[in-house]
């Protein structure tokens, strides 16, 4: 995993628990067309943009917005 991937996992873990890696991998493959392990700093804003609506389907929308903001700020 890239350093950026590690950082994103560390930030997202409190929100997604054991589903963190799978969730982020799905967003990266589905919307950024890259594997989660290949995540770079430049991808973060785009990732954050897709994380928010996807996360809002499985958790409180406020929390989804929160985690997306944290990813974007990395």
């Amino acid at each position, binding site marked *: 995993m890239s350093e950026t991937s590690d950082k994103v996992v560390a930030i997202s873990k*409190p*929100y*997604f*628990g*054991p*589903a963190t890696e*799978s*969730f982020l991998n*799905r967003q990266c493959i589905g919307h950024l067309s890259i594997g989660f392990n290949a995540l770079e700093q430049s991808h973060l804003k785009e990732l954050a943009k897709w994380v928010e609506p996807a996360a809002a*389907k*499985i*958790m*409180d929308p406020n*929390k989804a917005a929160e985690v997306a903001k944290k990813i974007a700020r990395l």
Partner: protein
Amino acid sequence: MKPTIKNKLVGGCTGLLLVILGVACIGAFSVFSLRRSAFETTRVGDRLNSESLEVQVHTLQAHNLARAYLNGITTMGAEQAKSTFLDEAEFEINEIQNLAANLVKISPTEAKRAKFARIPAAADAYTQALDNIVKAAGNKGAAIPKETLDAYEGAATRLTESAEDGEVAGHESSQTSQEQIEATSKRSVELVTGVSLMGLLLALTMSVTLSRAILIPVEHLKQVAENVSMGNLDITVHRYSEDEIGDLADSFSRMVTAVKFFRSEVETVQAEAGSGRGGR
């Protein structure tokens, strides 16, 4: 300090103990001070009663000695009668004045003080009247003028009346002190009951607040767990507090999120597999 359940419980129990201690201290202080005040009232009442009786006794004694002197002037001679009876009568009058001064000093009310204050004045007038008789009688026992005798009788009557008034006031003081003790003990019971009820109310409020702080989040988590166990994942997990139960709520929330995600993954995979089969 982090508001953990442990800290809340420790804080709550300490608070309760302090409330109980405070109530006990206030109660003990109230009872002690009221008791002391009751004892003081009784002591003053008893003293007023006994000393006013003493004044009465000394007054009667002074009158008897003065009468004995008047009789003695003719039977034993003025000089002899004076040394036999009047010296003792002076002692009695002196006692009356000392006792009356003390009664005035310890009287609790202005009205009683005024009644007792009449005694020394009457005793002074009585002494003056007696002196006039002594002067009129002289050393040889001359006849005493009627107006001098009348003045003496008037002074004696006034002294007797003021001593009687004093005795009544003393007796009233004693009775009043009994009434005050009853009122004081009643007030003490009311005060202690009031303070205890206040403490109880405070302790009850603290207990209820503490229980609610723990029970409401636990009840919510129980409902969340029941929903998840029945397959209902469309629930929101609230974090009610920043303590261990709040952390537990976060864990529940993560767990529900992960289960939701994995379930949606499974559904997606199943849908893809289904459409793949259908396509073949």
